[in-house]
């Protein structure tokens, strides 16, 4: 009898029930979309922030930063180098998957038209297969997204060409396509200027060439001076700061938590384990600021999500209240026919819950659709679907339907059949 009544109501009142279901669909899809976006936004924004370039640099432990200051780089000053063979080991560390891009750099000085200039050897692009079978595509190009290039980027094996900073090019009146001769010690080699870049920083007076070309020119086979690394990291917290000071000060539990979280200090620590004599340091300008932006964006999305969820919850519960009160006449008749309060309450609740569940399921899938639309439009990639959203949304929906029914139920129990049936 009970179920027959419910089925009847659902069919007879399908207009109103559809309305409730529709609002539930809207509300649930909104919450689902927002929660998925909110949970995925950290990762997406983190990847976007990679345009700022490397957030970790690795250099030899005895190569001091001092050499940068006085422009004394090159042989004789910092004659400590890392090994090129070690570079690919970066992908083998615990957080290797988080290392998005990296490029080794070999700094040196060479003569150009009688004056001394800085030359840098690097991987403009690098395509290789790791021992694990993983394909690797990286290189400096990915770490210098802000460069304005006239001409072209160097390609992977273009050992006869160079790129020049625009300041150096204009000083020497060189253009794309010109030929130059560089000398270092007894070595001398001819190159074609393939591209001129504008960095807006100190690189604008340097010459960039492929790593093998630089190693040959400088007579340093198999050597690199620094490695620039761009890694996805988790914003620092107190534990990470403590560990950054001295990893040995942590308790074993803390150490494990720290080691297995993608803190920039943990990644640096792991890089040092695979690069012989290397010291990995976070570039605080990039690493620290990333954390700030990430935290702010996530917090913003959390608050917008909370607002829209509250909004849709109120809207749903409001509509339920409205539609139950409307049916007071019918329910008054039931009461007049001898139905108990609890029976009527159960009837109303069951109707609303069934409608809510149906709407909720439809809304969940619609919400996933919305989330993907946002992900594709803004970040050009899919947003990962978080399973826990189903649970959160289900609990919220249950509470909301219940809360929406409470004023209606209170109204129903106070209902006097005669008044309702007579009045109106």
């Amino acid at each position, binding site marked *: 009898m009970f179920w027959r009544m419910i089925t009847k109501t659902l069919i007879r009142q399908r207009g109103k029930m559809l309305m409730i279901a529709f609002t539930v669909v809207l509300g649930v899809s909104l919450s689902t979309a927002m929660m998925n976006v909110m949970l995925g936004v950290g990762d997406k924004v983190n990847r976007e*922030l990679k345009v700022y370039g490397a957030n970790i640099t690795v250099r030899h432990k005895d190569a001091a930063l001092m050499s940068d200051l006085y422009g004394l780089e090159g042989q004789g000053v910092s004659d400590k180098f890392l090994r090129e063979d070690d570079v690919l080991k970066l992908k083998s560390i615990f957080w290797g998957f988080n290392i998005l891009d990296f490029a080794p750099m070999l700094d040196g000085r060479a003569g150009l038209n009688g004056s001394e200039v800085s030359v840098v050897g690097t991987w403009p692009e690098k395509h290789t297969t790791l021992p694990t079978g993983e394909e690797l595509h990286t290189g400096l190009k990915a770490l210098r997204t802000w460069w304005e290039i006239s001409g072209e980027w160097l390609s992977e094996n273009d050992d006869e060409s160079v790129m020049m900073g625009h300041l150096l090019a204009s000083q020497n009146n060189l253009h794309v396509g010109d030929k130059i001769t560089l000398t270092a010690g007894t070595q001398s080699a001819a190159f074609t200027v393939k591209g001129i870049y*504008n960095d807006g920083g100190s690189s604008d007076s340097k010459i960039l060439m492929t790593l093998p070309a630089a190693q040959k020119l400088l007579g340093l086979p198999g050597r690199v001076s620094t490695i620039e690394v761009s890694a996805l990291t988790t914003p620092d917290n107190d534990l990470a700061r403590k560990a950054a000071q001295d990893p040995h000060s942590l308790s074993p539990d803390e150490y494990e938590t720290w080691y297995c979280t993608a803190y920039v200090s943990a990644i640096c620590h792991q890089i040092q384990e695979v690069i012989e004599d290397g010291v990995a340091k976070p570039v605080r300008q990039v690493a620290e600021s990333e954390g700030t932006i990430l935290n702010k964006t996530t917090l913003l999305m959390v608050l917008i999500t909370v607002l829209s969820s509250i*909004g849709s919850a109120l809207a749903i519960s409001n509509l339920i209240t409205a539609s139950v009160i409307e049916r007071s006449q019918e329910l008054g008749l039931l009461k007049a026919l001898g139905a108990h309060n609890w029976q009527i309450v159960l009837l109303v609740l069951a109707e609303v819950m069934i409608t809510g569940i149906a709407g909720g399921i439809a809304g969940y899938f619609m919400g996933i659709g*919305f989330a993907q639309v946002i992900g594709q439009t803004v970040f050009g990639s899919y947003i990962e679907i978080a399973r826990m959203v189903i649970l959160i949304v289900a609990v919220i929906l249950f509470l909301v339907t219940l809360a929406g029914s409470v004023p209606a139920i209170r109204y129903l129990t106070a209902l006097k059949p005669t*008044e309702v049936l007579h009045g109106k």
Partner: protein
Amino acid sequence: MASNRHGSRRRMYVRMVAGSLIRRASRLIIAVLAIAIGATILSGLVTIYYDIPEQLGREFRSYGANLIVLPRGEAKITRETLGRLRELVGASKVVGMAPYRYQTVKINEQPYIIAGTDLHEAELNSPFWYVEGSWGDSADVSSVMVGHEIAQTLGLKLGDSFMVQGVKYGQHAEASRQDLSAEENQKRDMARQNFHATLAVRGIVSTGGAEEGFIFADADMLDGLIGDTFRADVIECSIVADAGELSDLSARIEHEIPELMPRAVRRLTQSQDIVLGKLQALVLLVTAVVLIITMISVYTTMTAMVAERRREIALKKALGAENRLVMGELLGEGVMLGLIGGALGVFLGFEFALRVSLNVFGRGINFQPALIPLTIATFIIITVAASIIPVRRVMDIHPAIVLKGE
């Protein structure tokens, strides 16, 4: 007895009227609530959306200086020029503006570089520096910050002192002469054309960059030491602006203060434009989705509430009411509900946006006055549409059919 029955009838009448009113009032409350929720979300999100570029733009300043101003030619930058620059940029846009003067000094006969700056402005400029100890200030000028690299090389710890020596401004160093003893050479170094001072370490700077090889001191203290007035080699500016605004600003600086040469830091300006653009698009899309869904949900709630009045309207028509009269009544009600709910929502929405801004960015938010008419108008349209569209169908039907059928 008769008066008793009369009294009970009057009580019944009062109760019926009151009951009907209360029932109606609860419906009105529900309607106003639905509209107010929608209006709160609309005005709150739009307010946030308008303030996002400004607010997030300021957050991006944590990447440090985005405009480097160099002197043109050999001249240095004076304090007067710095003042003009600050005025030109406008105080509201400047996050930090720190002049730097670089001076070579000797510590233990080894060359090092002291950067004289306005330490407070430098701190605003570079929030990403990790300083063990504390930032220097102008109150205690003889204690300075040293780079991590220097601290390691010299074995300096917080609170340690070290002696710096150097040549005063405009003087030339004299080479040590071999015929003099070490002591005599040292005395000559201490003589008039040279300076020396003992400085204490109050902070050790780690950045992972070139800053770790500098000593940072108060500019005035350094000027006093080398016997010169303020001359900066470079000014680092952190300015709230995107790449386009910065290049406009650079052009203005070059035009108005020709002795300066501004250079935007491409790495920061370009990257900021990319990331900020994405974030703005994100908030725009989210706002659009939330708004559309909210509007529809307000509309359905209103429709549900009006639909039940079909019988009442049909009755009115049966009693001889004109379509225009009934429509006018509904229209008036819709406008009233939209007005009250919308007005309530505008202020709740601003309150919400303010809370979000304070929580996320730690700053207040600008109220957009245009939102008041916009929000109210939007919701009047929604309520009126929601009231009239479902009832329209009733208008064309014969009242008897509506009244008879369930």
